[in-house]
């Protein structure tokens, strides 16, 4: 079966322009460097890394919201990298996105029914009344009753707004959902609700989710597979269990080591590695010198190492 989403050798170079019109100096910044990822159907793939690691840029490129500098994006086996606006539109139905900041994700001037119905509106599906009806059904599915239809975003709590954002993303029944830190702005007591909602909807609608997060605890509860990004590259990828029990890359390990303990009893001393130390500690499989590459070291376990 073809995977829901495939990224092949994606790279993104930003030109950083400094202020000053005409003579502004621009420097190249390689935000994403040769990233390949496969999101199998009906699975949740976690993409983790610190801020500036390129994980969000990768997600936005997968959505064609940021144009890649090199590489390919395949949705259900079709290459959509070069498609123009009109040709891309049918594929837009298959992939949707949920953002971190639910406040800025909803148009403050629109009612919730209008917001959730917008995808139907843009794709011209059904009459106005049908669109509203479907939108209300979708709101119910995400845990908000019909009475919310004519409310405005500012009247909702953070968790409720995130439900609306999820309802809008799923109303077209996409196959791929890119979720960019959807729980990190939420209150602790609400976080579990949204994680459960995503899990329920994923099972019910047969979704494949690319879950971008820096919160490894959430990733552990939610994902099937994890890819770790460091300075624009993927340095390790494996099943969630393998990552949490048998991580091989020094960066993955330092990330895991940094997770706060779940019980004061487990407090421990830690050693902190600098970026340079991490680079220097790149695993060597045969003790020889060379350039680090992403290698398959076990079935489903990829690791950046020197061969």
């Amino acid at each position: 079966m073809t995977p829901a989403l495939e990224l092949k050798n994606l790279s993104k170079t930003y030109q950083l322009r400094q202020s000053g019109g005409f003579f502004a100096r621009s420097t190249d910044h390689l935000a994403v460097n040769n990233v390949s990822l496969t999101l199998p159907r009906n699975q949740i793939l976690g993409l983790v890394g610190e801020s500036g690691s390129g994980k969000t840029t990768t997600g936005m490129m997968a959505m064609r919201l940021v144009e890649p500098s090199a590489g390919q994006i395949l949705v259900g086996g079709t290459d959509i990298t070069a498609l123009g606006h009109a040709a891309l539109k049918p594929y837009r139905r298959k992939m949707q996105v949920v953002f971190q900041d639910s406040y800025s994700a909803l148009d403050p001037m629109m009612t919730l029914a209008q917001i959730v119905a917008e995808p139907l509106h843009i794709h011209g599906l059904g009459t106005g009344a049908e669109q509203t009806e479907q939108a209300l059904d979708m709101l119910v599915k995400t845990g908000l009753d019909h009475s919310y239809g004519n409310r405005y975003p500012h009247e909702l709590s953070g968790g409720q707004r995130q439900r609306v954002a999820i309802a809008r993303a799923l109303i077209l029944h996409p196959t791929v959902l890119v979720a960019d830190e959807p729980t990190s702005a939420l209150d602790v007591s609400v976080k579990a609700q949204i994680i459960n909602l995503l899990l329920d909807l994923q099972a019910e609608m047969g979704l494949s989710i690319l879950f971008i997060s820096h919160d490894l605890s959430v990733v552990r509860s939610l994902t099937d597979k994890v890819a770790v990004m460091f300075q624009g590259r993927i340095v390790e990828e494996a099943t969630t269990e393998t990552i949490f029990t048998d991580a091989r890359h020094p960066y993955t390990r330092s990330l895991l080591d940094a997770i706060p303990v779940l019980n004061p009893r487990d407090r421990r001393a830690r050693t902190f590695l600098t970026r340079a130390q991490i680079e220097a500690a790149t695993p060597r499989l045969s003790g020889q010198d060379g350039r680090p590459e992403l290698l398959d070291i076990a079935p489903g376990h990829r690791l950046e190492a020197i061969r």
Partner: protein
Amino acid sequence: MSDTPRSPLYFAWRRFADNKAALVAGAILLLIILMAIFAPLIAKTGYADQKFLTQAYAFPQAEFWFGVDDLGRDFFTRIVYGARVSLTIGFTAAAFSLVIGIPLGAIAGYYGGRADWCVMRLIELFSVVPPLLAAMLLGALTNGGFLTIVLIAALFGWVQVCLLVRAQVKAIAQKEFVRAAQALGATPGYIIRRHLIPNAISPIIVGFVLAIPLAMMLEASLSFLGIGVPPPTPSWGQMINVGMNFMYFYWHLAVFPTAALAITVLATTLFGDGLRDALDPTLKGR
């Protein structure tokens, strides 16, 4: 949470209603607008009728509230009709300012980069040219007249509208609901129409209201210099110019048009400021 859903504009209205100065200013402005609309019903003569030549220069009294002017016209009538001219020019010029300012501001804000650079250079162009001098030159070249004044006022009034719209659109274009719409395959036109303009409604309203006093001042200034609205059409600026010559003897000819202009401009500005304060917090997105 309240029981009836409230749109963000409802809260803006509530904030506005709290601002006493703006409310009073709005009421005064409304009164002046009504006066201008129903001028023929209020005034006893036509604005150019020299019916009281024998009583020329008469001071304010029961029969002539604001006195009689140098050409034997009832001065109250002149002032009331002057409001018509001033407001018409103010509103039309403000409308034209929107016509130029909204699309340029939206394009600069949404597309950024090169488009933004070009619009900003255009605005810089208008900031280094002294507006009144340029307006005088243009007025002189085209021999003045109503439409010319409107166009000149719009030519210098759009800049503020454009900057306001640009800033708002720029802020909104970064919001994730715009990205979500892009992810759905919405065209830039759709996004500008459905998301950016409705969310920029506050700077548009504010820009419109604040462009009105600017245009009224420009008209008064040009008319004051004798290159604005040609007589006998009544214009406050023109009346001030005439009144200045009689200032030492017939104070009313200078005081009433000056007060009329000052009150109208002040009321409009305070009303606009109130609107801005009321509309800003909601739409900046908390």
